[in-house]
């Protein structure tokens, strides 16, 4: 089940990366009072409404030899970024960005301001307050972010199709393999893989939600 393992590896990498880069972005969006904040919020939410083919198309151009990222990568490593696992990670990070950031924003915003003020009054700086007050209280949001990002990346198809090149063990994720089977009229294989994926995905989500019963509405209405 090479494709399944590849999908899980991709999802795990993307979830980890988005947790690291999503936190500062979410923190800024949650607590900033900048009047232009709505612009950044729109950019962050863009992958939610963009068809994956649009994202995939731009990713292919950006990763290609004429794109800024592609040129840089080629200069550094001597080979292209498209058709590689690294290329998939970059495209997936962009695609799942709002799925990580928005739950984090909601959780950060939900933290009682009085606690933040108390922390400041007691002499804790921004980072300490974040570590000791905001983060522990935002754990449901963090878990939601990780779970959603993971699940979203597992199910990713359009973007991977556009930039992957369908290389076994490298970019042939399980969603691509299922599609391949259908295209080759191998419906039995397609069905088998789809059911396995469905069962595993459901299992993972059920465990996480069972363990963390307070988790839901990733983006609360304001």
């Amino acid at each position: 089940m090479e494709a399944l393992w590849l999908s899980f590896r991709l999802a795990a990498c993307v979830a980890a990366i988005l947790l690291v880069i999503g936190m500062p972005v979410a923190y800024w969006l949650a607590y900033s009072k900048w009047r232009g904040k709505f612009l950044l919020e729109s950019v962050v939410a863009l992958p939610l409404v963009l068809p994956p083919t649009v994202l995939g198309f731009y990713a292919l151009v950006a990763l290609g030899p004429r794109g800024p990222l592609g040129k840089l990568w080629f200069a550094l490593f001597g080979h292209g970024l498209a058709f590689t696992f690294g290329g998939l990670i970059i495209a997936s990070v962009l695609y799942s960005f709002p799925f990580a950031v928005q739950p984090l924003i909601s959780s950060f915003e939900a933290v009682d301001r009085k606690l933040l003020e108390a922390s400041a009054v007691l002499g804790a700086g921004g980072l300490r307050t974040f570590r000791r007050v905001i983060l522990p209280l935002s754990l449901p949001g963090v878990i939601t972010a990780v779970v959603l990002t993971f699940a979203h990346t597992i199910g990713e198809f359009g973007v991977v199709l556009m930039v992957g090149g369908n290389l076994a063990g490298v970019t042939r994720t399980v969603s691509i393999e299922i599609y391949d089977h259908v295209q080759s009229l191998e419906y039995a294989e397609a069905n088998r893989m789809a059911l396995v994926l469905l069962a595993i995905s459901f299992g993972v989500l059920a465990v996480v939600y069972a363990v963390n019963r307070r988790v839901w509405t990733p983006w609360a209405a304001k």
Partner: protein
Amino acid sequence: MKFAMTGMAAEFEKQTGTSVLVTYGSSGNFFSQIQNGAPFDLFFSADIDYPRKLEAGGLAEPGTLYEYATGRLVIWTPVHSKLDVARLGWQVLLDASVQKISIANPNHAPYGRAAVAALEKAGVYESVKAKLVFGENISQAAQFVQSGNAQAGIIALSLAVSPAMKDGKQWEIPADMHPAIVQGAMVLKNAKDKEAARAFLNYVKSEKGRATMARYGFGFSKGKQEQEKR
């Protein structure tokens, strides 16, 4: 097929006043959709197997299955490539600067299967196997190389002569290096206007239709005459 089909549809409309609506996509997708009742009148496939399967499944209008063209393969490189593929032919694929070679997925795309067969016949398949990347269909394979992500590709001649790609460098792979890419068309049993559908298919078979197909990079097998008599 897109450019050839657009040309023929326009000509046919001018000639007969009947409008032709064309939907483009991969043969495999349409095969599945037609099996599930998709409302098409005609089906032009990139291979002959899908139409044959539809005919065997009773979804074709009897006697309309027709081999409308054979596909041709070329090795294509972007215009700025330092390699002269017209002169070097297969050697281009072995060059160190060519890190990725795009072809259509041989598992379900007829042009991909033919590309692999030609690579094997030329004796270079083992050497280039690791460089291959697979497009979902021949169009995506072309897009991979046209965008520069692959440095060379084995694509359909009909795509190589299209406006987006005709400035590139190409070398036509001899037809005897791969099994013929026979492309079949048919009127579907589900067709709403069977007479008009037959009329369009007849147009495609006609001298004018074949001239348009040839102009856009398609060939014809010698077995054509037999088909027309049926």
